[in-house]
């Protein structure tokens, strides 16, 4: 068993269990904190996949900025606790779980039916080269400079929109 496989097992177990705990906890603050754990373990998986830049961005942008924003709003609003899983509409919730399992089985069937590992095998040098900040920066500011600027305008529009929406009175 290689170190890569052990790390993959640990990180995937942490991410799956924290995702399940996030969905099942009734307190939204605890849900948000479990999502932070999930994002951190996903950053570990990105590191195993040689995606250094995305792993760092995951920790800084997702686990840092976006989740702090979510926690801020949750604590500002202080919503009531929900009912436990089976206390309210158990039939509807069982149906929802059934739908989700159906989605998972469909995707898993497609993955195993198409057998991508028969065609795709990792070349370590190319994989490491593709994930470096140097490579991503070069591509971002040459080939993808127009989408990059467009995303900047999108963020500006979102900031202005959030400001207008959250204002006290809409006129």
């Amino acid at each position: 068993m290689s170190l890569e496989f052990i790390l993959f097992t640990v990180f995937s177990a942490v991410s799956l269990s924290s995702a399940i705990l996030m969905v099942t906890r009734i307190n939204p603050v605890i849900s948000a904190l479990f999502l932070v754990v999930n994002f951190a373990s996903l950053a570990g998986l990105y590191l195993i996949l040689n995606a250094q830049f995305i792993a760092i961005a995951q920790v800084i942008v997702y686990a840092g900025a976006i989740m702090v924003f979510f926690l801020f709003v949750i604590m500002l609003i202080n919503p009531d606790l929900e009912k436990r899983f089976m206390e309210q509409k158990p039939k509807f919730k069982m149906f929802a779980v059934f739908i989700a399992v159906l989605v998972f089985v469909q995707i898993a069937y497609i993955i195993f039916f198409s057998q991508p590992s028969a065609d795709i095998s990792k070349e370590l040098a190319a994989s490491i080269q593709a994930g470096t900040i140097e490579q991503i920066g070069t591509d971002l500011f040459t080939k993808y400079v127009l989408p990059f600027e467009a995303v900047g305008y999108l963020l500006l529009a979102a900031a202005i929109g959030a400001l207008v929406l959250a204002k006290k009175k809409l006129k």
Partner: protein
Amino acid sequence: MQIPIEYYLILSAALFAIGVTGVLIRRNAIVVFLCIELMLNSANLTLITFASYLGSSVGHIFVFFVMAVAAAEAAVGLAIIIALFRNMQTVSIDKLNIFKW
């Protein structure tokens, strides 16, 4: 030993299914939002997996853009939730049914 690509794809499919369950069973609008973030991240994991196994940086750049759009989406969505809470004093999606007739 190299990890087969299927393991990562199954992991991200499982995370996506957990996110779908959360969106369907949770009644709190903010937690529904958190579950949508989980689904976005499972899609990101798939993109990074393929980018890593194919040795291409396009997947990384795509994930970078997805992160930027997710940040914009979170800002606007939480502003909508704050505006709703100010008008209706609740964030339960069972009570936010003003467009239903």
